[in-house]
C-alpha cells in the first residue's frame, strides 16, 4: 500500500500557505514567529517526501540542518522579543515600528 508523492507535496503546500497567511494576518509578534516555524515544518515535509522518493539520504540531512538553524533562530528571536517587550511593553507588531531598542 502506497501513498502518492503528490499527496505529501500538496499537504506541504497547504501547510506552507497557512504559515504565510498567519505571518500576514497575525499581529502578535510571538504568533508571527510561530508561523515561521510552521513554514519551516512544511518545507521539511517536502524534503523528507523527496528523500523517500529519490532514495537520497541528503534530504533527511537537510531537514536536520533546517532544524538546527530553526533552534538557533528560536533562541535568538525569542531573546529579541524579550528585549523588545522590556523597552516597549507591547507584543503588537504595529506598535514596534522602529528598529531602535
Amino acid at each position: 500500500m502506497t501513498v502518492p508523492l503528490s499527496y505529501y507535496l500538496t499537504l506541504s503546500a497547504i501547510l506552507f500557505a497557512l504559515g504565510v497567511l498567519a505571518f500576514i494576518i497575525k499581529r502578535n509578534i510571538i504568533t508571527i514567529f510561530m508561523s515561521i516555524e510552521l513554514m519551516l515544518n512544511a518545507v521539511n515535509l517536502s524534503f523528507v517526501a523527496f528523500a523517500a522518493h529519490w532514495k537520497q539520504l541528503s534530504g533527511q540531512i537537510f531537514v536536520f540542518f533546517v532544524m538546527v538553524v530553526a533552534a538557533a533562530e528560536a533562541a535568538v528571536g525569542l531573546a529579541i522579543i524579550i528585549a523588545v517587550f522590556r523597552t516597549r511593553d507591547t507584543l503588537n507588531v504595529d506598535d514596534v515600528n522602529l528598529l531602535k531598542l
Partner: protein
Amino acid sequence: MHLALFLIFGALAVASAVNLVAQRHPINSALSLVVVMGSLAVLYLLLGAEFVAAIQVIVYAGAIMVLFIFVIMLLNAGEEERTRGSRVAMAVGIPGLIVLAGALMVSLSERNPAARDRVPVGAMFGPPVEVGRALFRQFLLPFEVTSILILIAIMGAVLLARYHAPHPPVARALDPDEAAELLEIAGTHGSATGARERARQEVRR
C-alpha cells in the same frame, strides 16, 4: 492502512494549522503548533525517516515549543487586539493564501513527473545508522559549522536577553513642593547650613 494514516494525520495537521491562524490567544496557537509538529512526526515515520521523526518530537515539539510557551507565559501575552491594519491584512491574506496554495500545488505536484509515482511507505528507508554515517562522513564540515552557529546563537541570546539596569539619576531638579519642604526644615532648625545638609539627604533619598 498507510493511506488511512496519511489522511488522518494530514487532516489533523491542516486542522491544527487552521486553528493556529484562527485562535487569538498566542498560547492556543502554540499548542496547536505542537499538534502540527506531532502529526508531521507521524508522517515522517510513514515515510520511513525514523531519525527525523525522533528529532522532530524531541527538538521541535519538545525544546523549541517549550521555549515558545515559556516566553509567552513569561511575558504574560494576552489576546491580540484588532487594528485597522489587520483587516487589510485579512482581506489581502486570505485570497493570497488560496493563490499561493494553488500555485504551490500545481508547480510541485502537477508539473512534476516524479510526483505521479508512489512513495513506498514504511520501507525502512534511511535508518538512523545510515543517516549518522552520511552526517559524519559526507556532511562533516556542515555539521561542524552548525555547532559554531549554535555557539554564536547561545551567546547572542544571552547578550540580547540580558537585563540592562537603568542608569541611576545623577542629579535631580527640585520641584516647588520639595523646596517648600526644605524651607520648613530650615525654619525648624534655624541654620542655613543645617538645612542644606538636610536638603542633600532628601535629594539623595
